């Protein structure tokens, strides 16, 4: 099939960008979206033009590196699917596709579709961990964890840290991301000890980094390639209130 692409091109952070038009010809429905872009890039390179820069690595939907807004939706039209796992059979011959970077105040564009997401690392640095020292920990079965709790923790821990939730949010909030980590650790007995401090410092760091606050739009859930549920935001809020009361 043949497609019409409009792609965001921007040389560097401090330069203006613009949408540019490209043709993608002879695209097979078996191709992944990124393989389609690879093919467009091969054509650009042969013409001596700079290829479209985009982040990607595992191409298996797990590393969280790929980050494109496709036709206005972070990671594109298919539910619970990262950009790299989106396949061309989801498009039709003659389609026009708009491709942009994840946009948010806290995610400056580095080049074309590549953004700087280091703010997410800093939210984790603030306290997204259990302070276990290497060695000297108890036997793994010493503390039993109800299956349901382990499953809930896993549901939250599945977050791949791609930032689609931020790009989808009208406020550019990283609430779903932060809530997923807070909840993953707060559900587990090992994580309870630091839970109050954790939720406070992570939320504070989130706001310091220029992410907005949650306005309960829940666009994040729709965009999340891992289907992380908004119930974790409620959990974060509960943990936060508990911590505030406890601290006073």
């Amino acid at each position, binding site marked *: 099939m043949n497609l019409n692409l409009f792609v965001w091109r921007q040389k560097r952070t401090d330069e203006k960008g613009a949408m540019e038009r490209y043709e993608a010809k002879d695209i097979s429905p078996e191709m992944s979206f990124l393989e389609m872009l*690879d093919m467009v890039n091969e054509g650009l390179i042969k013409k001596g033009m*700079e290829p479209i820069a985009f982040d990607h690595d595992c191409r298996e939907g797990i590393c969280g*590196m790929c980050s494109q807004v496709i036709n206005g939706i972070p990671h594109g039209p298919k539910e619970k699917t990262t950009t790299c796992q989106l396949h061309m059979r989801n498009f039709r011959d003659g389609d026009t596709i708009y491709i942009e970077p994840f946009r948010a105040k806290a995610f400056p564009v580095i080049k074309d579709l590549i953004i700087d997401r280091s703010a997410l690392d800093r939210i984790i640095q*603030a306290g997204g961990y259990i302070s*276990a020292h290497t060695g000297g920990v108890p036997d793994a079965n010493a503390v039993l964890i109800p299956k349901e709790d382990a499953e809930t923790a896993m549901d939250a821990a599945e977050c791949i840290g791609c930032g689609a939730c931020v790009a989808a949010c009208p406020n550019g909030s990283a609430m779903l991301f932060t809530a997923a980590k807070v909840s993953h650790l707060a559900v587990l007995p*090992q994580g309870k000890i630091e839970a109050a401090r954790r939720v406070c410092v992570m939320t504070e760091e989130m706001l310091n980094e220029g992410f907005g606050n949650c306005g309960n739009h829940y666009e994040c859930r729709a965009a999340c390639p891992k289907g992380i549920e908004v119930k974790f935001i409620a959990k974060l809020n509960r943990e936060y209130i508990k911590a505030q009361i406890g601290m006073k």
Partner: protein
Amino acid sequence: MILDGKCPSGPLHEKWDRRKQELRLVGPVNKRQYKIIVVGAGLAGASAAATLGELGCNVEAFCYQDSPRRGHSIAAQGGINAAKNYPNDGDSIFRLFYDTLKGGDFRAREANVYRLSMVSNNIIDQCVAQGVPFARDYAGYLDNRSFGGAQVSRTFYARGQTGQQLLLGAYSALMRQVRSGTVTIHPRMEMLDLVIVDGDAKGITVRDLVSGDIKCHAADAVCLCTGGYANVFHLSTNAMGSNVTAAFRAYKKGALFANPCFTQIHPTCIPVSGEHQSKLTLMSESLRNDGRVWVPKNKGDKRLPSEIPEAERDYYLERKYPGFGNLTPRDIASRAAKDVCDEGRGVGPGGYGVYLDFEDAIGRLGENTIRERYGNLFEMYERITGEDAYKRPMRIYPAPHYAMGGLWVDYNLQSNIPGLFVLGEANFSDHGANRLGASALMQGLADGYFIIPYTISDYLARTKPGVVNTGHAEFRRSIEDMNASVKKLLSINGRRTVNEFHRELGRIMWDYVGMSRSEDGLKKALSIIPGLRAEFMEDVKIPGSGMDLNQELEKAGRVADFLEFAELMAQDALHRNESCGGHFRVEHQMPDGEAKRDDENFRYVAAWEFKGINKEPGLHKEPLSFENVKPAVRSYK
């Protein structure tokens, strides 16, 4: 030169304790004065950097992704082994040790593998303490599953995302150290060179992938944790950026490269769908717990799988290996798949595929149980192929997956260059000629959490901290060399893209240095690779500049190294005139087609020394002795 692995003496189970006793320590106050570079933030790198930071060293951690949370360890699906024996099914440290050694076809060091089995249990404890949400049973205890090459259930898992959860555990420990100021992270940086001063590793040269700047970092010791090189085959289950560059540049600076031909082809991957293919996706080996592998008995049978009656199906693994059935080790399962496809019995477009069928398991356990166990894998399969594996069998085919070979290290994980330590998949240490499933995660974390903190201290205790800085002539020279090589690549301005060369190299490697290798084929590969390399240096086209984010330039550097490394791999495969594990030489097989090892002549590690481009590398041997097990014929029948 005969190499010495420097294994401790004494009975097997006392060796590691003895070594720990012998190793020197650095006092807590002095630790602060030492700076350590850790390249790579996968399981090995993240666990090492976090632990060394926690001990008080100054750690500089590098990775090429935008965050240390994205190392390719994240993609591991199936699980991690440990000898906990929680299911009480006969497991023990010795059995894990034996299975791993036998799985590696007796081409690994006994002492290393035993230590790995010993610390395996600490890893699980550590990960649980960090909050890794492993699967549990209804009573709240940790759950286990079985994996290829083992008759016990010793694999711990977190749904189909074990690697992700373990890596996020290590990453969170790392972030904690960043916060406390002991670790500095340098994402989007690619290591291009190792800097050696007076014989010791003292730093690295990196390219900032955003600004294009080439800079040096000096330290008292360097740990390479840069993963495996399966991308030499172009299509593999590795990430797009996985490379041999860091290890290969260290090799070119004098580090020995051990057993480069020991590569693993994983039996269960989604088959190639066309020329455009950019990578291959693994379907976890854990699926073989419940899936049955088969092909039609008749050649060229084009019927739908559901139309082929039971009597006309060949469950060839169950038939050939009744003892292990669908859970035979990877090398064996891969070769068996290739054999039936070469016979013309393969399925799917092109005939390069076999079925992995869940019909029986769904009948026995119900679709819900299967969904619970493998739901995300079935979804991934559906996204990629558009087929529903609950309704019709998956199609799978072997794909390059893992590198058992890597930089040579001694028992302390130190290379032949003092101060250069190599961890995780980047070293050659524990898996011999074939790695068993769920043992790479174990090794990466063993190296990073529990081995390097002890062994590197010994080196530091003998080293004065901070003696060199980046003003040293060796650093300046390294920067000049790297700038020159970037400039050279950009100046070629030919007609073909980097991908085109990579694809062509991959085809050569798959055809001649892949699942089965022959003298003629290897010689053929060795005769064409240099030509391809020369063509690359004359005809590759890389647009853009070096002073900018330039992904084609990054790729070109990696492919240039693969083009040189490929030759080393083929040379090693040609020299190893035996079949063992993943290295199958057609000249050496049993009457029934199984690998025929030659212990008399090849019971050694082959470690290669760089002698110059287009020059034969030098071979050094580390003989392997087996004091506690008898190298048996590896049978899974």
